[in-house]
């Protein structure tokens, strides 16, 4: 009974780590994910038996763990992954959500999507090939999307006899490339996803490696400061008015805190009206809160009866986002059809919405070399470009690298309603 309690309590004390993986068909990404799921015992017996059977049918020597994650029938037949797939596993310390993205087809679109919600990226490098174009591409996107932590898995160590020299060569190569990136925390680990070396269990074949296993790092890496707890931002999603006898005059502003820590009594200002007030209460179904921080979903009431609605943002008077109609963004074009010159798009930013045009294309970025391309300004699918948007009304934005929620936008095609682009604000 006691053990049961401990288990339950520890489960209630777990943190959530979202990470993205990117890799091509051959560098062992699916095998690595299969390995993490398998060695962390997140797979049911019937799943593993099915995979074993398929592996036998294909005449493979090993159980092909990649079969665990290749989902749709098309993918199994073609041996490729076609879209972002989300996987789940847990250890006693953390729960993990993997955004598993394919390495080649539509790579920008998929990797950007997967990276947008991740705290960490796993970059796979085949030790025999070293840093290749694709490695740079994955790393650059991770950096562009401001993923705080990168783990470079130098894979297939079994194929180079677990050579320290081969490993160091790749690490050095990556480090010299990474000086161009905007990521503070980069770690390296020599692994064999196929045999499980240094994935969950420490390998006896790499005595020269003094670092942690991949799983140990995933379980212990500090993610507590990944949210912005300094700049108070509360985008209002909707207004709650119960109209009941008990809560007759209740008027609460519901939303998810996008930054900072709010407390009752705090002086606040509502954008865009500029009305000032004080927080009267921060309410939840489970009772009022003394303080609330990102990424909590709460309902706020204010001391004064002022007009607040969806799209407004509650902030602190001395720390406000920039209200602007001219928005500099790094834009990732996600749609098959590129932008039509002069076309209007709907821009979505937090709970706010406006219309916009792409006023100017400053340059495109070659995501293999990180070079600026200034002579070709035609944006096509999967291109990344620095552009200026002009919006019909002010948006209240922060730099993407100080706040991923208030610094990000999407563009929606007004004719098809498709999400055609994703942008990161650069002020």
């Amino acid at each position, binding site marked *: 009974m006691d053990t049961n309690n401990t288990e339950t309590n520890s489960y209630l004390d777990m943190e*959530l780590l979202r990470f993205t993986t990117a890799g091509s068909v051959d560098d062992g990404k699916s095998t690595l994910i299969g390995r993490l799921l398998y060695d962390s015992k997140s797979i049911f017996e019937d799943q593993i038996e099915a995979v074993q059977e398929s592996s036998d049918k294909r005449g493979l020597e090993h159980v092909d763990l990649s079969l665990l994650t290749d989902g749709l029938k098309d993918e199994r037949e073609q041996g490729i992954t076609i879209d972002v797939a*989300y996987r789940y596993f847990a250890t006693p310390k953390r729960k993990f959500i993997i955004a598993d993205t394919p390495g080649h087809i539509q790579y920008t679109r998929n990797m950007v*999507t997967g990276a947008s919600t991740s705290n960490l990226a796993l970059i796979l490098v085949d030790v025999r090939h070293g840093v290749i174009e694709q490695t740079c591409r994955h790393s650059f996107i991770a950096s562009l999307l401001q993923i705080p932590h990168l783990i470079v898995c130098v894979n297939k160590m079994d194929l180079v006899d677990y050579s320290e020299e081969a490993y160091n060569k790749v690490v050095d190569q990556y480090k010299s490339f990474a000086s161009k990136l905007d990521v503070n925390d980069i770690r390296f680990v020599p692994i064999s996803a196929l045999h499980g070396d240094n994935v969950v269990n420490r390998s006896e074949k790499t005595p020269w490696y003094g670092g942690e296993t991949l799983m140990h790092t995933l379980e212990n890496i500090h993610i507590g400061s990944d949210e912005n707890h300094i700049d108070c931002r509360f985008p209002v999603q909707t207004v709650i008015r119960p109209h009941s006898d008990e809560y007759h005059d209740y008027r609460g502003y519901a939303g998810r805190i996008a930054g900072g820590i709010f407390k009752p009594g705090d002086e606040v200002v509502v954008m865009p009206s500029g009305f000032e007030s004080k927080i009267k209460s921060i*309410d939840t179904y489970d009772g009022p809160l003394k303080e609330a921080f990102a990424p909590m979903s709460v309902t706020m009431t204010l001391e004064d009866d002022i007009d607040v609605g969806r799209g407004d943002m509650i902030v602190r008077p001395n720390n406000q986002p920039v209200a602007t109609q001219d928005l500099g963004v790094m834009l990732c074009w996600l749609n098959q059809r590129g932008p039509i010159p002069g076309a209007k798009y709907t821009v979505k930013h937090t709970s706010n919405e406006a219309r916009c045009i792409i006023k100017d294309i400053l340059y495109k970025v070659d995501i293999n070399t990180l070079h600026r391309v200034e002579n070709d300004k035609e944006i096509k699918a999967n291109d990344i470009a620095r552009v200026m948007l002009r919006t019909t009304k002010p948006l209240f934005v922060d730099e993407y690298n100080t706040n991923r929620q208030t610094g*990000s936008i*999407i563009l929606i095609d007004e004719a098809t309603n498709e999400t055609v682009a994703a942008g990161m604000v650069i002020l």
Partner: protein
Amino acid sequence: MKYSLTHLKELEAESIFVMREVYAQFENPAILFSGGKDSIVLTHLARKAFWPAKIPFPLVHIDTGHNFPETMKFRDDLIKELGVKLIVGSVQESIDQGRVREESGKNASRNALQTTSLLDCIEKNNFDACMGGARRDEEKARAKERFFSHRDDFGQWDPKNQRPELWNLFNGKKNMGENFRVFPISNWTEMDVWQYILHENIAIPSLYIAHEREVIWRNNSWLPVSEHIQLGPNEVPETKMIRFRTLGDITITGGVESTADTLAKIVEEVASARQTERGNRADDKRGETAMEDRKKQGYF
């Protein structure tokens, strides 16, 4: 004070955020309520999202007519407690109208017929967003499902043409006749759902808890004996301690043998099922043969 959330609190915050987006972005949303644990958790989250106001959506139940009586009572009690509207899409009605044809034979089930009734119900009530309790960990095809899943005017899902979802910017724009399915608990696992039910002390139908019931062994599970199933010539009802891991149409919802008669014990059972090690296989095999033996006893 520690400024970080536990994973359940973070999942809860995410789901509440998604439900509020649905309320703000759509004109006529609804919650698909099956009476199963996932839709119960969804309803609980909706209550949290809009408190102190009532849940601003109706609950929609697609009724196969083959229900566990316990589920129906649970549904009606919950509706009364929440003070929300219940809309029933009836499979019997679809059959009577000739919209679908009832399956026949021993394994006859109305499960597949539900789709027509659901689409009819969406059309009749003009729902533009239906929230469901589907999770991405349930099945491989669902691993790629979006939170906001766009359906064309035939109600179809095209996995290759889904809108990318970045950060927490959800695009619910649509043309006339189109609608959305929304899955606020996409990122929850079965274990998360159980832990949450335990932690929040959420009421669930007694069927989930181990109880004695008349069952037959069919298609590798213990199927409850009811007026809606035909017994084969060799099928002899037995009384077993069982519980249900999922709840659906009574004709296809099989139970597992279990002694877990409290929520805490269920969580323990779910946890140990996940932690089955490869080394424990022999035990599992023994267990399976043991079941085989019982099956044989039942048949012969």
